């Protein structure tokens, strides 16, 4: 039997996205890309975006190597951001950051996180928060067209 704690972190949805990550491929052509790296643990990923002329996300994919949390987070980020506008994307990123730092309670606070709320327990595992946030920082860096590899440090 697993402990309840672990059931909270490694839920079926996360395990499933880890095993079968969605949108896990290089996107070519892409309008925006960035490389993300966590020097503490070696997690490494690329996020690729193709924006429409109306500035909505037509396509978003990722590639790279990381733990289950980072892979699942990236996979779920891509499924949630497809079709979203830049404004919605920024809002979702902001709320996701609040969520994983324990500052947003998805049951009480109004939010647009949808299934991403599954990461609400991660702030109990401080060492793992960056695993969940790496893909988001990388996506943001791609949109902001920051030219260099981003880092969680």
């Amino acid at each position, binding site marked *: 039997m*697993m*402990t309840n*704690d*672990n059931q909270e*972190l*490694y839920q079926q949805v996360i*395990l499933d996205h*880890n095993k079968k990550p969605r949108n896990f491929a290089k996107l070519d052509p892409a309008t925006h890309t960035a490389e993300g790296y966590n020097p*503490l*643990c*070696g*997690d*490494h990923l690329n996020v690729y975006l193709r924006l429409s002329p109306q500035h909505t996300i037509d396509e978003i994919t990722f590639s790279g*190597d*990381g*733990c*289950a*949390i980072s*892979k699942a987070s990236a996979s779920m980020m891509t499924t949630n951001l497809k079709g979203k506008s830049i404004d919605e994307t920024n809002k979702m990123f902001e709320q996701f950051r609040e969520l994983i730092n324990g500052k947003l309670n998805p049951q009480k606070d109004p939010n647009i996180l949808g299934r991403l709320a599954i990461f609400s327990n991660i702030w109990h*595992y401080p*060492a*793992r928060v960056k*695993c969940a946030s790496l893909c988001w920082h990388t996506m943001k860096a791609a949109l902001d067209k920051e030219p260099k590899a981003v880092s969680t440090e």
Partner: protein
Amino acid sequence: MNPKTNFDVRTIRKDFPNLNVHVHGKPLVYLDNAATTLKPRQVIDAISQHYREETSNVHRGVHFLSEQATKKYEKAREKIQHFLNAKESAEIIFTRGTTESINLVAQSYGRTFLKSGDEILISRMEHHSNIVPWQMLCEQVGCRLVVSPINEKGELIWDEFKKRLSAKTKLVSIVYVSNSLGTINPVGDIIDAGHHVGAKVLIDGAQAVSHTEIDVQGLNCDFFAFSGHKLFGPTGIGVLYGKRELLDKMPPYQGGGDMIATVTFEKTLYNVLPYKFEAGTPHVAGVIGLGAAVDYVQSLDRDKAEEHKEQLLAYGTQELLKIPGLRLIGTAKFKTAILAFVLPGIHPHDLGTLVDREGVAIRTGHHCTQPIMQFFNIPATSRASLSIYNTQKEIDTLVRAVKKAKTIFD
């Protein structure tokens, strides 16, 4: 009681209060000893006594407390001299740890005596602290860093190592025991081979000091670096041993108080060894704690302690390999009690989090040895590193926890 060696782990365990802690409601199983060892009460008491009864600066005051602290501080230096079998206590320089010791040699010896065209030889299995200081030196003086390869077992390839030695080699800096593989390097041969081409040899002894007796004169190494906290001592204190003939020629690493003989604005005369290299108020409590740690280690039957760890290593190797798919990283013929492994389908960080919930502390990641991870083409490993207080029962707990984690990911 271990029947084969009569090495009484239960008695040893009583010395380490941290072992009584519960983690997530489970008894702590501490298997991260290569990162840092737990501290025995003898060390904790020595540090506590210093702060309770003899707080003062050293080498300065004429008052009673300062004299007491200075005496203990210098006594600790002598203990470490004997622990390493150095010729004199002035060859023992206190630093913040292995990293600072290596940086001291790079910046003081390296910048003075190495020049463009010279080579520094290291190995593929070095910790970042025995790579980066040399890269910095190479940028400063134009010398070249040469890396000796390892084989699939994680052993230095001796012929390749010798091939890379030449008259250009001015420094050889090699780890005694690899922190991520457990490999024990043939440092005696390495030192002799380095000297044969006229190079000076530094040994990174961070993992070695808790594993084997060190005799710097017997080894004939030019520099030897280690950290107190991997030897049951406090963090923030370490040692650089250097031969006097070299230390005497080297300029100070940092300037400040205590490292001077006289200061005027025209000219400053530096202090004698070892104070030339100890600028500023040192980590007095740390040095006293390290002295107590050395006393503690020397009170043990080290052969029996090592035998105990070897049995744990053999048992742990056997039990971990029973887990389907598990691959050990680091299978050198001569290795210490370090069990690094990867499991298909589970990233080490997920495994680390899951076994932590069972009370088991292991290290996951690249262990500050990214070139080793690149060699084995893996992002990271999970590493259980064993010490004198660990038991077979604790290895069973680890194996159970790993199997349980595996069921979640299968």
